[in-house]
């Protein structure tokens, strides 16, 4: 076990670095840039029961230190994924995290059932509970602790694959939603998905994104993500995967100190596809220079 290896519950990762869902597709294009086996894991593009074309028009808006996206879960559907992409991910040598999105409780349940049949190829299911349109009322599942607990426990009953619940930061109390995931039987929570944002083209007086609003990511969201990881690490018993704005090895260290057992990197890899290679090297050097192993950093924050 190297200095970078970490555990997220029962899942052992050779490095804390996981590629964030939606920012690496299924890894194939990035394999043209580097050997994916250096990674701790790869989280697949968010999958749905049926293929989805995603949103039309402009899907990305640039911000000062980040971006808005409104890809809208374009994906080939879970069946196509299992047939065409899962083996590639498995063979990459990185842990296979399958990101699951749904529009209703049934969607999530059907997906988990399907994926459970291929559990030998999957290291964890990452359940994306920030989908804006679900059958149950107008409240999204991801901001309602009771709904989170319910759906997590339903999925828990169906599989013993590790269940990582990915939470939205657009809530008043992230501790409440994270605790609900834990109570429902989650193995870990992933913090954070994107903040909801908007940009307007002042010439056309229209939102830049054809979807009007989009998910905000990149370095700009990091202070919010760090705060949420640190808050949750005070109340949770299950591990946290930190995510949001990571762009260098110091950011990885910052998230781990705040309470993360592993991290996901998204937007920064869109700009520098081979960034995880550099961060991995830098983390090794950091461990050597400081004579430590990385997993000992988790939750070492000393509050004032």
């Amino acid at each position, binding site marked *: 076990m190297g200095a970078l290896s970490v555990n997220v519950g029962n899942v052992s990762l050779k490095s804390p670095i996981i590629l964030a869902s939606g*920012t690496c597709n299924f890894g194939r*294009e*990035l394999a*043209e840039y580097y050997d994916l086996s250096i990674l701790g894991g790869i989280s697949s593009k968010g999958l749905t029961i049926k293929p989805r*074309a*995603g949103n039309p028009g402009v*899907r*990305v808006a640039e911000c000062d230190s980040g*971006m808005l996206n409104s890809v809208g879960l374009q994906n080939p559907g879970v069946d196509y994924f299992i047939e065409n992409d899962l083996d590639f991910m498995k063979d990459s040598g990185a842990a296979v995290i399958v990101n699951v999105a749904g529009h209703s409780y049934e969607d999530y349940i059907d997906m988990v059932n399907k994926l459970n049949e291929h559990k030998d190829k999957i290291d964890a299911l990452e359940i994306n509970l920030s989908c804006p349109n679900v059958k149950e009322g107008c409240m999204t599942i991801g901001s309602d602790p009771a709904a989170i607990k319910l759906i997590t426990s339903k999925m828990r009953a169906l599989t013993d694959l590790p269940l990582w619940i990915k939470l939205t930061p657009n809530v008043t109390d992230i501790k409440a939603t994270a605790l609900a995931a834990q109570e429902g039987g989650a193995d870990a929570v992933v913090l954070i998905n994107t903040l909801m944002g908007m940009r307007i083209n002042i010439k056309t007086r229209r939102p830049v994104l054809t979807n009007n609003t989009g998910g905000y990511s990149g370095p700009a969201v990091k202070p919010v993500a760090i705060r949420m990881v640190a808050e949750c690490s005070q109340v949770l018993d299950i591990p946290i995967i930190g995510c949001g704005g990571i762009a260098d090895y110091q950011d990885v260290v910052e998230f781990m100190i705040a309470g993360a057992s592993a991290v996901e990197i998204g937007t920064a890899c*869109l700009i520098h596809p081979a960034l995880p290679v550099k961060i991995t090297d830098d983390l090794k050097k950091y461990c050597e220079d400081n004579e430590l192993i990385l997993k000992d950093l988790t939750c070492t924050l000393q509050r004032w």
Partner: protein
Amino acid sequence: MDLKKEYRIKLVSKEFLNSDTCYLGFECPDIANTAVPGQFVNISAGTVFFKRPFGIASTDKENGIFYIGVKVVGKGTSEISQFEPGLMVDCLGPLGNGFDLDGFDTVILTGGGTGVFPINFAYETLTALGKNVIVCEGFRNASQVILNKPSYILTTDCGDCGIKGTVIAGLDTIDISDPAKTLICCVGPIPMMKAVSAWTGEKGIKCLVSMEQRMACGAGICLCCTVKVKDEGPDGFKNVRCCKDGPVFDSTEVVW
């Protein structure tokens, strides 16, 4: 296969083609040696968050230099236009699929605006191979004309130089002997490409177009740069990636 890289490359030359368009040379033997016409590079642009995509306008393999033309339209291109030779920038490339030029007797290159840059690269490549090339470019007016050559058919909207009208007026002057052996490559604003696509459709000429879309990664991983193309499926279309599945598409595939 060699792994792709993100390059850190040097700006070696810069000149202004007109008041708001400049032509930049970057040293990067890998890109200069492997790029084909229609491909693009993604270049870091000063203080803005994303890299910016630009079609490759020319390559100088001997000196390992490639060229791009940049028209100032916003913050990123404005900062790029102020770059001074010697500056190092981050660059991904060559990206995307170029024009598949094989199997045709005649290639007609047409377009306008910043489309003249990839056309220039295609022209240089085809003439170096001794192919039969016809170029027809359209501009708003004489002051907008850049990278023009005497042999080119030139059109302007206002008619202050060349043929008055759009590129269609220029294309109409071309005598096409064998449509099946003729390829048209068109790079320009959407309305222009749409018109050329319709024109080639009537004539039964194969037409390749180069699409533009807002990009985040340029590398095919984020699905931000959607182009709608026809599909057998229930929707009748599917969203593909401009950066990786394009930017060059058969004009009959595109849902305009």
